[in-house]
């Protein structure tokens, strides 16, 4: 188990390096950092002066190595716009995004897993049809529209929940539901299909032949095996929620990382953009690593090769 975890960790670190290289190259190719700092009214002499003083005239590879050296020490540079360390700018926004993503994932799991089990126990029954209908709506409905619908019903008409901001937990309820409902159908379908497969397997028949209660057969013997593919996908979904909640954070005016990413890109704030991409890839790597470890813990065939 330990060597398995170590192997996965080393691969994760290598992926981080590759991602950081690609990010650095692409952002610097897309935006001229000197021009971005100088602003729109600057003369070309000003731009050249900035280029020299910031060291942007050095080769890309040399700049990457310098940036990487600092990044490894926890220094991701300073924001061009806010004139403060990038790390501080991101750390300020991260809690909101983490809370939103966590709540959204919890909502998605709590909704989809029980529904999927109920549907898989009786395929083609009314509960199965409701589950599939629910999944269809979730997949077909754009997140922003569902979010606006939520605001109209629960904030404007019923006045139960706040429509914008991220001050209290109440502010997180609507965005988390909107974001979670987008992720839930995939998890639900995957869990349902896995459960139907597993319930038809020989070892479930064995469990029944042993005279175990139906609850034990389903919740112990079937669930453990059916949940495996769901774990990996849920991890990726969670990464998406943390990195890609730009639309939801913008609609609900939440001061999260997604909103920050949108701001930095539109303002050509290179260091912040780079750092966000790097952070999102780090989150993905950590999540897939945890998903792999969780799967190894759940499935002895991975753990003991």
């Amino acid at each position: 188990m330990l060597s398995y975890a170590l192997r996965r960790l080393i691969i994760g670190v290598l992926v981080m390096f590759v991602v950081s290289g690609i990010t650095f190259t692409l952002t610097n190719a897309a935006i001229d950092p000197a021009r971005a700092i100088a602003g729109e009214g600057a003369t070309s002499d000003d731009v050249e002066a900035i280029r020299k003083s910031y060291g942007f005239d050095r080769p890309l590879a040399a700049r990457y190595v310098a940036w990487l050296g600092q990044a490894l020490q926890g220094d991701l540079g300073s924001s061009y716009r806010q004139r403060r360390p990038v790390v501080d700018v991101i750390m300020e926004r991260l809690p909101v995004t983490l809370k939103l993503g966590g709540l959204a994932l919890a909502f998605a799991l709590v909704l989809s897993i029980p529904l999927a089990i109920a549907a898989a126990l009786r395929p083609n029954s009314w509960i199965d049809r409701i589950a599939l209908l629910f999944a269809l709506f979730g997949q077909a409905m754009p997140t922003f529209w569902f979010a606006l619908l939520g605001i109209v019903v629960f904030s404007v008409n019923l006045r139960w929940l706040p429509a914008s901001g991220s001050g209290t937990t109440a502010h997180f309820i609507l965005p988390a539901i909107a974001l979670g409902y987008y992720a839930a159908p995939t998890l639900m379908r995957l869990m349902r299909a896995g459960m139907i497969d597993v319930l038809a397997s020989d070892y479930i028949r064995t469990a029944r032949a042993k005279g175990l209660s139906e609850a034990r057969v389903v919740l112990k013997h079937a669930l453990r095996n059916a949940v495996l593919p769901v774990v990996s996908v849920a991890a990726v979904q969670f990464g998406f929620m943390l990195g890609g909640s730009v639309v939801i954070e913008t609609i609900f005016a939440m001061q999260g990382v997604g909103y920050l990413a949108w701001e930095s890109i539109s303002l050509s704030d290179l260091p912040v953009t780079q750092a966000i991409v790097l952070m999102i890839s780090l989150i993905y790597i950590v999540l897939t690593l945890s998903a792999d470890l969780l799967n190894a813990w759940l499935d002895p065939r991975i753990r003991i090769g």
Partner: protein
Amino acid sequence: MTALLEVDDLHVRIPTPAGELHAVRGISLSVRRGETLCIVGESGCGKSLTSLAIMGLLPREARRSAARLAFDGVDLAGGSRRAIAGLRGNRMAMIFQDPMTSLNPAFTIGDQLVETMLAHRKVGRAAAVDRAVHLLERVGIAAAAARLGQYPHQLSGGLRQRVMIAMALMCGPDLIIADEPTTALDVTIQAQILRLLRDLQAELGIAILLITHDLGVVARVADRIGVMYAGEMVEEGAVGAVFERPSHPYTRALLGCIPIPGRTPRRSPLGAIPGIVPSLVGTIQGCAFAGRCTHAHEACAGTIPVRTLGAGHRSRCTLAPDTFEAAARTASLGAIGR
């Protein structure tokens, strides 16, 4: 003494897009304490469904009906779910065909053995673990205590089937239903597993209902035999009587398909049964085997009588066995004459 397992007029019907598949068509059988009844037949004759119907493990869409289905007096067809669940895995246990897929890959052998006992007996985990170790040793697994922590994928097929047998024995059952328990195993392992089952039966007095397509297996372990064809029991009786004096043309044909060392002449062609099993969708008029039977005549389209040929030896055929013997003599005389 009354039978441990009584089955009378058991039917299993499965709805399919092509119509209702009437897979088991009025099977009656009984198993007494301590005896082995073997049910033989080709693939698709309904023998596995019969065993699953007895255990109440049919697929959800299948429908079961029976005039009587009882285990030691407990009604398995109309009895309470609790009472039946209390019997399953406890007093009647089942061993399946494929040991590679019949154990849950996510849990240890020990966990899967122990939970059977914890589900039925008021014993502590330690006592259940002791019993598991004892039984693993009894079924011939070395280093039993260390095996408890292993997962199914770490064991060979033969070992897994031994684990399945130990699991069936956890609660000291009166009846074990074994559905093709050796089919998925190597020939050498098959022999070991059969010997193990026979020894356990002699030692513990367990009744066994063994489902197989292998007449070699039947010859080794059976006390009585039931021959199934197209969802019906066509012949049943003590194994000696049926092997010595097979009375249904299907049984005779089946036995003709097996070479017997020392008895079957070298280079003589092995028997084969022409034709295929009839579709089990809808009703079958008369004898289901008539289409493949060399002795078929007009009466085979009518109601088929069940002939009693001796103590417990019955055959579902319009013709008396003497008729075939006379025919066989004429045929062999003819062959010699030519």
